[in-house]
């Protein structure tokens, strides 16, 4: 079966020289595509999770009593929300990367402890996290004080009020905004290209540099791969939104 598919694409490459789906019949190229896709998925998933964690912590810090803490968080948001993410990536990797310690496994090679993948994760998580802080904050503010008071009157502790009442409600109103931001994050993972993170775009470029005849097919795959990824995020978020919908409120 697999051999038949490979044969089909091999013949196609012979018949139509500009449509060489090299990665469908050559093992090494196929592995490149898969590892690129896997890297993109990993980047997306890890960054989504980290950015959500940053969002919750940041939203908590924004409600802090100390004006210094609040100013720090708001400075962070202002900086990361509005500068282009690829500039942030470059800044993290080249500027901060200079100051990170290195280790030497074999005595003469110096390897920084944070690799380019590491910096991409850090940078993209902080980028998306800045939006999440603000989204969660708005979600928490949408929960009326009086509802929290009712919980207080029933004897809930502060932590219980946050866990059982405020957060479940805040999350629900945040979903649409969160949806947009996470889609944007998946799109932005492509920009990790600038620091040579071997994600899908990067691997694609190496493939069409090696096989110029594979350009059209590779670009087609690339385009639909991202539409597919974004589609998965949008659909799962929509599904989540539907299951979380509170009967009787909103339309």
């Amino acid at each position, binding site marked *: 079966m697999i051999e038949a598919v490979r044969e089909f694409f091999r013949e196609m490459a012979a018949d139509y020289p500009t449509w060489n789906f090299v990665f469908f019949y050559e093992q090494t190229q196929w592995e490149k595509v898969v590892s690129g896709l896997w890297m993109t998925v990993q980047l997306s998933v890890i960054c989504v999770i980290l950015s959500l964690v940053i969002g919750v912590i940041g939203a908590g810090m924004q409600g802090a009593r100390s004006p210094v803490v609040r100013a720090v968080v708001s400075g962070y948001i202002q900086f990361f929300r509005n500068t282009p993410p690829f500039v942030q990536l470059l800044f993290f990797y080249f500027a901060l990367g200079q100051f990170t310690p290195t280790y030497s496994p074999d005595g003469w090679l110096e390897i920084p402890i944070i690799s380019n993948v590491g910096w991409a994760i850090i940078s993209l998580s902080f980028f998306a996290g800045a939006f999440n802080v603000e989204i969660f904050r708005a*979600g928490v*503010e949408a929960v009326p004080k009086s509802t929290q008071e009712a919980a207080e009157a029933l004897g809930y502790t502060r932590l219980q009020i946050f866990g059982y009442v405020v957060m479940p409600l805040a999350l629900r109103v945040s979903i649409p905004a969160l949806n947009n931001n996470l889609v944007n994050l998946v799109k932005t993972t492509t920009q990790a290209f600038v620091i040579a993170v071997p994600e899908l775009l990067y691997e694609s470029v190496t493939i069409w540099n090696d096989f110029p005849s594979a350009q059209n097919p590779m*670009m087609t795959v690339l385009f639909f791969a991202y539409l597919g990824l974004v589609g998965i995020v*949008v659909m799962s978020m929509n599904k989540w939104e539907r299951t979380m919908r509170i009967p009787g409120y909103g339309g």
Partner: protein
Amino acid sequence: MKSKHIPGIHQQNQTDLPVLHSFKRRYRSPSEIGFSEWLAGLPAWVPFLVLLAAAAWPMTALAQGSNYTTGQAFEALLRWIPFLVGSGFFLTIVISFLTMLVGTVLGVFLGLGQISQNRFIAKFCWLVTQTFRNSPWLVLLFIVMLSFPFEITIGDTIIPIPDWIKAVIGLALPIMANISEIVRGAINSVPTAQWEASESLAFTRFQTLFQIILPQCIKRMIPPWMNWYAILTMATPIVSILGVEEVLNLTRQAIEAEDNHPELLVPFYSFVLVIFFIYCYPIARLTVRLERRFAVKL
């Protein structure tokens, strides 16, 4: 601004049950108007502070072991400025202008298509809009850069297509999709009663759109449109990845031509930051001003 509620002192609102307040963000997202708000909100001296910090940087950080001084680095910068601005930044502006022009024209058609009564056209335009809004810019750029020919032949004349024209097309696609959403959003913000009123006065759908609806909402589209221009301009350096010789690319080349002294990095790149700021800052200020002025209730 609602003052803080003190129970028992202020009369509570009797009808609006506090089940959940509306979801109100303190900042608006960059793609709405937030980018311009942020840029316009910065004090004008910020980039010059950066430049000043840049001047101080090499003395402290990289002073050891090198006989290349900050003074020399700034001299080099001065020598290169006419070229960087006249050639590099000029191209940046040309790219941004053309991209906006192409993106707007296509985007308006697409946006009008989205509200078409023909279900097929509406669905198709919606699909195109969503596709290009949700694809990564870099992927679109790569695709356009590689799949467009470098020259076209009409009859005997060969018309070369330089890289930057292809960059314009690549960038115009996402801009088009976002303009399309602005147009659709603005038209939908006009109450349906307006459509009904003009329909009852025997206007055709076309007349209603162009004589009644668009005149009402065109002002609303201007600030978000300008906001997108600022976002686009700030994002154009991305095309340097593909070898277009705009300002960022030329800056890198200039540094290489000056023998790659590390002391050059900060002054040169800070300079790039400052010219972008000088160009985009007034636009952002104007955008925010217009947004406030046009914020009339329909």
